[in-house]
């Protein structure tokens, strides 16, 4: 491992890292439970697992306050949990049941938890970038001290909002950190094949947003760098973080990803961010017993969420007509 990696490993805070290990394990187990549930047709729509990318979600969100804001994408389970959302309410949403975060109206791509500052996943790639800039704009107008973190993928950097939203954040001096999870793929396409030039970081820097790159599979690195960037952003200097990682599953739980060689994926599994963190924790003296217990507890929590969600009723159908808007009767003129 590199010099500053060993540096970090040596002065690692075991208590904090155990928490982060717990969070990463919980996300992993949530995704695994969701994938199983999709196979069982309990999950009704498409899901985009974040397996392999947990260190980015946990490393970044671990440096946020409850009142801080995040926005996510179609691949949002990890970010949402890392910000403090309840996996049962998430699982219920994936199952389209009562008590889901969106009352069963949204599903995986439209989970939000405004109580913990999670302003929503999004089904439209790159669309959350402008919305996030606006959330930060509101914080500035209100003189608040919160910061916004906007997560998006490498593929999102080929859409217009990437340019418009970063420029906006800079022009207005907004408290926002843009986090690009570069997992190498945009659905079934290798993002590089459709991206000219040096890529997202170079583009962000050219727009004027100070940019940092990090190994997104190294929780300790993400944690340390995110801490600084978030505090700089909080002062109204937008920041951009490119986290290099890898999508260990297919694009959706239904995607076997035949378009990439088995060897590539196997090799990437050797760089599993959870295993990496566990290795560092062991080196720092954490016992296998404790670490196993954390993982087991996470698995059990998600199994319970799965069971409970499975046993939950469908939402009442009247809900289809609520929260459309205040003005006007949505039933008018129908059927």
């Amino acid at each position: 491992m590199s010099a500053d990696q060993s540096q970090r490993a040596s002065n690692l805070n075991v208590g904090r890292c155990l928490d982060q290990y717990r969070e990463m394990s919980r996300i992993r187990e949530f995704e695994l439970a969701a994938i199983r549930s999709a196979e069982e047709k309990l999950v009704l729509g498409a899901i985009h697992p974040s397996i392999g990318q947990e260190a980015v979600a946990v490393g970044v969100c671990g440096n946020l306050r409850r009142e801080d804001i995040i926005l996510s994408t179609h691949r949002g389970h990890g970010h949402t949990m890392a910000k403090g959302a309840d996996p049962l309410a998430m699982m219920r949403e994936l199952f389209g049941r009562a008590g889901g975060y969106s009352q069963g109206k949204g599903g995986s791509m439209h989970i939000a938890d405004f109580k913990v500052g999670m302003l929503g996943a999004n089904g439209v790639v790159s669309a959350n970038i402008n919305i996030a800039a606006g959330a930060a704009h509101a914080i500035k107008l209100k003189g608040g001290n919160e910061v916004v973190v906007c997560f998006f993928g490498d593929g999102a950097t080929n859409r217009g909002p990437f340019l418009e939203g970063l420029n906006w954040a800079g022009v207005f001096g907004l408290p926002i950190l843009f986090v690009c999870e570069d997992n190498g793929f945009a659905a079934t396409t290798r993002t590089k094949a459709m991206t000219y030039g040096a890529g997202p970081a170079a583009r962000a820097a050219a727009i004027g947003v100070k940019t940092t790159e990090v190994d997104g599979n190294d929780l300790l690195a993400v944690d340390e760098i995110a801490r600084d960037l978030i505090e700089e952003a909080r002062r109204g200097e937008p920041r951009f973080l490119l986290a290099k990682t890898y999508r260990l599953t297919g694009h959706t739980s239904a995607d076997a990803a035949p378009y990439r060689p088995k060897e590539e994926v196997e090799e990437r599994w050797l760089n599993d961010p959870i295993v990496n963190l566990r290795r560092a924790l062991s080196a720092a003296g954490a016992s296998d017993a404790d670490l196993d217990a954390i993982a087991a507890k996470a698995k059990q929590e998600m199994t319970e969420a799965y069971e409970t969600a499975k046993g939950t009723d469908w939402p009442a159908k009247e809900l289809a007509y609520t929260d459309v808007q205040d003005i006007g009767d949505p039933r008018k003129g129908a059927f």
Partner: protein
Amino acid sequence: MAKITYIEAGRQALAEEMRRDPLVWAVGEDLGRGGVFGQYKGLTDEFGSDRISDAPISESCIMGAAVGAAMMGTRPVVEMRFSDFALCAVDELVNQAAKARYMFGGQTRVPLVVREPIGMWRSSAAQHSQSLEAWYAHIPGLVVAVPATPADNYALLKAAIRCDDPVVYMEHKGLWPLEGDAPEEGVVAEFGKARIAREGADLTIVSWSASVHTSMEAAATLAEAGIEAEVIDLRTLWPWDREAVFASVEKTGRLMVVHEAVSVAGFGAEIAATVAESLHKALKSPVKRVAAPRIPISYAPVLEDEARVTAAAVVAAAQAMIAN
């Protein structure tokens, strides 16, 4: 009675709402210099450049940022300059603003006003003249306001700013200089309540925005010929005042809808179809739409006029209906 112009009425409404509520702010290109039509003139002096904010030429970010800022509790008034340019921000308006509250199970609101000036205005041609109000009326979650008078541009804009739903607010570029009675100070319109612009017993003309004036001109001509048209100014298309329209058509037995937009799949079709569905037996003659042909809008006046609904066309159609 005091008079005011359509553009000034909107300016005053915004200024008053900004005084009343510090969370209201406006954003758009060139607002610092008063906006492209002068709708924001002088407001920077009073409210500063944070609340009357310039913007880069980034329509999708202007709209998208407004969605985020609205979800965070501010009340942005977005200026799109020409409704045509709002076509650069449709995902933000239709997929995001209109659906966020619903998709997130009621956890948020998007109290956002999008000002989209519509309509023909001098020789502005196909990319600066469109009227696409029917599009937004079709989208669940959106409110659509189409003021025809200075008083309404005041009362409806205030209502739009106070509304917790995203409101597509379509002022007509041809009406900016129009003078009319000043509204009662502080009055806030109720969405979905039409205005009977003129009473009449022989036929009902339903219209909105600039076409209300075309309809009134036609009604005056018809009156000389002894035909009394009742002219209804809908003021908002979603919601639209079904009750007022039904009451009038039950009285007159005849419905004509007049609008500037293309007739095919225009909002006139919704009104004509609804009345035909609900009041078939009350109709003395078939419902009738008077609206534009399905052509882009031209630059040369002789060509532009081919897309323009004139009072003469309304009169002719009305006489044909009565004769029928």
